[in-house]
């Protein structure tokens, strides 16, 4: 039941993210100005946020490599490491600076990694993992197409 609710929440967020990304990305095409919405943070917060996104990128790479080798244990552990337990380490002062739609996409990403971890613990089909990974990456592309971090 809980898993179903989480999946529904993810799908709703995904639909919202896609709509947002499509409108903003089409507006940004061919512009020499960055039309993405700035989120103002301190210099240290920006460094931490960019590092966390690189961590996401590394996670996607590691999951792809592990799925190829049918190494579901590595998929599960790697995905779980960037799940909601990582989201809970974000300082409340930083969370207050995020627009609601950004917070929703971020939470959805962390929840989706937890779901992927769970899938890897029960599935032996690498393509099922790849399909879930592709859904998570839709949130990545939507968020990157919509927001940027600027030092306040």
């Amino acid at each position, binding site marked *: 039941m809980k898993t179903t609710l989480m999946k529904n929440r993810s799908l709703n967020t995904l639909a919202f993210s896609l709509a947002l990304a499509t409108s903003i990305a089409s507006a*940004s095409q061919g512009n*020499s100005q960055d039309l993405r919405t700035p989120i103002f943070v301190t*210099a240290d917060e920006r460094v931490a946020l960019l590092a966390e996104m*690189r961590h996401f990128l590394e996670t996607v790479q590691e999951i792809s490599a592990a799925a190829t080798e049918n190494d579901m244990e590595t998929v599960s552990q790697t995905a779980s490491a960037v799940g909601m337990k990582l989201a809970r380490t974000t300082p409340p002062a930083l969370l207050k600076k995020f627009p609601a739609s950004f917070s929703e996409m971020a939470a959805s990403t962390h929840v989706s990694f937890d779901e992927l971890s769970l899938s890897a613990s029960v599935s032996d089909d690498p393509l*099922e993992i790849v399909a879930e990974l*592709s859904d998570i990456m839709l949130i990545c592309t939507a968020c990157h197409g919509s927001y940027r971090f600027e*030092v306040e």
Partner: protein
Amino acid sequence: MNKSCKLCWGISTLLLLVILAAGFVFVKGGKTHARADGRLAVLLTPAERVRVLGEMRTFLETVQTITEAIAENDMDTITKSASAVGMSLVKTENPAFMAKLPVELKKMGFATHQAFDDIAQAASVTENPTELVADLGNLMLNCTTCHASYRFDVEGSKNN
């Protein structure tokens, strides 16, 4: 050797030196600046930075499209998406921008474009999607290595 011939040789030598110097700068690339986050910053103009970040988002979107297409065994989409960001895209780059990139970054950039072409080629001959996941995983090692090593800054920006 008459006077005009000497002049021709002089101009030719000068042109050759200019071409060699431009070639050296292009290959060697611009200077990088060490930043507190441990990465090396490449200084660009605001417009260049917007463009290159946009190009990287296109890479991310392409990886997502390919991942989705692999899951659906849609080899045609994989070939088309990967090919669109292959070496043909490199030819559209501005030489002045390329000259600012350090040689190691250029190598990773070229390797990434080439790897997309390789995936396009592989998708046109294989029926095994898992093989393409492996190729994509290898390609993404370029992304993670490059992002961990470099950043694009604009001189005087608060973000530096």
